[in-house]
């Protein structure tokens, strides 16, 4: 029952925030294949690491949040946790939850981990950094401070970083398991096919891709590929017929 309520809540929120994220204007395509800033990150009181230390071991899924967030952060992390439970990928990765709010301390992040029930999960790391501006810039992520609400206006952003420290893919908004699968493939340098969106102005496609089933149905375009041979053969037969019916056989 509780799960259902969370899900309904998450779905409504994701719809709301999915719409909100387009307003902020950031795009998933920016900064792809650029190197992430090698920021120092504090993961525990006596452990300071860098991005390179982490991504050298395993590719990273970086979730950018702040603990005092009254908006998308919690549903975003909840959904991420939920989706990852159903992903049994053999490809390695670590989820790094990092605060972009300079007011957040390590204690706040630990509390958040506890609230999510993830404090002992080795796959998840909760951390803070003092190089937020440079890190955000290398990702192309620009949260805006809204002094009226005392909140950041920002997107739910999950960034894929491969073992070499390059950003391979970004997911904006709360996304489903399928997208997460693609993200995990991309940080492991596994090629993921992409399809163009359906467009009513494209009349003659070779295939029509159905995103629901993931299947391709042959389209009218194939007729055009068969047409040249059909035309040539028809021409051959017609000419032969015409010349042999007009001229006496030689």
């Amino acid at each position, binding site marked *: 029952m509780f799960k259902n309520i969370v899900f309904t809540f998450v779905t409504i929120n994701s719809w709301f925030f999915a719409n909100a994220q387009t307003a902020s204007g950031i795009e998933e395509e920016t900064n792809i294949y650029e190197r992430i800033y090698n920021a120092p990150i504090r993961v525990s009181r006596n452990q300071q690491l860098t991005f390179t230390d982490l991504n050298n071991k395993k590719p990273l899924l970086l979730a950018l949040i702040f603990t005092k967030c009254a908006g998308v952060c919690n549903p975003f992390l909840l959904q991420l946790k939920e989706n990852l439970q159903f992903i049994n990928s053999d490809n390695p990765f670590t989820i790094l939850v990092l605060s972009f709010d300079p007011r957040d301390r390590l204690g706040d992040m630990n509390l958040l981990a506890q609230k999510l029930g993830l404090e002992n999960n080795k796959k998840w790391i909760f951390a803070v950094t003092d190089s937020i501006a440079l890190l955000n810039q290398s990702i192309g992520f620009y949260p805006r401070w809204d002094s009226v609400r005392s909140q950041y206006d920002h997107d739910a952003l999950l960034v894929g970083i491969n073992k070499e420290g390059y950003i391979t893919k970004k997911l904006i908004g709360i996304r489903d398991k399928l997208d997460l699968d693609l993200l995990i493939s991309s940080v492991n340098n596994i090629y993921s096919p992409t399809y*163009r969106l359906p467009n009513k102005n494209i009349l003659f496609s*070779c295939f029509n891709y159905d995103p629901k089933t993931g299947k391709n149905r042959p389209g009218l375009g194939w007729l055009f*590929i068969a047409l*040249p041979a059909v035309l040539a053969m028809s021409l051959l037969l017609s000419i032969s017929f015409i010349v042999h019916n007009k001229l006496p056989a030689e």
Partner: protein
Amino acid sequence: MESIKIKKITAVWIITVLVLFIVSIVLGILMRLNQGEIIEQSPITFYSNMTTHGLTMIGIWFVAGMAAVNYLMQRYVKTSYTANVIAYVLTVIGVLIFWTTTFVGKFHAGWTFLYPLPFKVMWATWATPLFLVSLTVFGLGWLIWSISLMTQLLKKYSIAQVFAWQHFRKNPKVETPPFILITMITLIGIITCLFAAVILIALFFAEYFSNGNFLNDALLMKNLTYFFGHTIANEMLYLGLAVIYELFSEVSGRPKWRTTWYVALAWNLTLIFILTAFFHHLYMDFAQPEGFQIIGQLASYLASLPAAGVTVFSVFIAVYRTEIKWSLTNLLFFIGVAGWVIGGLGAVIDATITNNVLLHNTLWVPAHFHTYNAMGNVLFSLAFFYWFTNQFTKNIEDGKFTKLTLAILLIGGIGFLLAFYIGGADSIPRRYSNYPTDFTAAAPLATMGAIFATIYLTAILIFFFKIYKGCLKILFSPS
């Protein structure tokens, strides 16, 4: 009278092809020098030159084959002088328009002008529609010419005869000469791929004039592009082979080659396979179903094996332990067949899916297609040019000097190609105006390519001066 006119127009074709060839080689050498960091061209100049070089080369060696076939076909049927002239005029107009788009308009989408590149305008805005117009002009001229030749063959031979099907039975009553069989198979292929080009250009124009109301499907456009591009590049080789089947034995003083059941079968199979081999250009297109990728690989093997097997066998039998009257013509044919086979092997290696993962878009690709063009098809046509000129102007051959020229051609050609092959095996990408520093061997190899290409050009210039004099004589002689 008609045959005199055809003789003259053939001479005009030869001079035109050789002049355009020399200009295109110079563009090729400039590209290699730029890649070798010996000269500095802007990327726009490099890619405009690459586009001019690629399409001009394909165009001229196609028309060279057609002109040769047209000339020799008169031995069997009457051919249309008018269609030949129309093709010539439209080819020249097409080249002028095309060169305007690249040299003046800086159009540089490559000779394959893969969709949607022509619409990503990084050149004069008029260059894209004008480029499409130039293709239309070429297509029209070549389609008229091919259909006209096909019609002449069909007037004399029934469909079964022209495809030599009677040779599948014992003691056929009528013999279809190998030249007629190969020409017909090739003409069908040419007409088919020109129809693909017509559809392709129509779709390009439809999108261009639709103001965004009609968009093309990239996969469909890529299929059509290679249906046209791959097929025409192969068919022009077959035109050269038709000439070899007609002339090799004749100039070697050997009995004329005859059509047997296996020659007929091989070429009939080639017709089918060559029209589906282009699928190997789409191995990297995951949206293309796996079945087509497999067809692409099988057709690539099957298209090359019968024709190559039968031709190599025929040439081998003709020269093995027999008294041959060697002349420049049959030497060029012989070396050309070797170039064709070696380039073909390189192509088959690349068309094997497991290898293509490594070789795709590396210099291996220009390596193999330059082998069967620069050291294959070009030599077939040069042999015909020599033979043709020799028919009417005596003694253009002089023993030692000719052999020296041939040696220069071989040294230049092999060195130029080796630089591509080594680069390809080293994973150096193709179509880079400037190589990234990670590819340490790329620039030295390019310089080596440029040096050897210049040696190759020297041989071509010598051939040119000998042939063009003869052609001018033919042109201005009263009969």
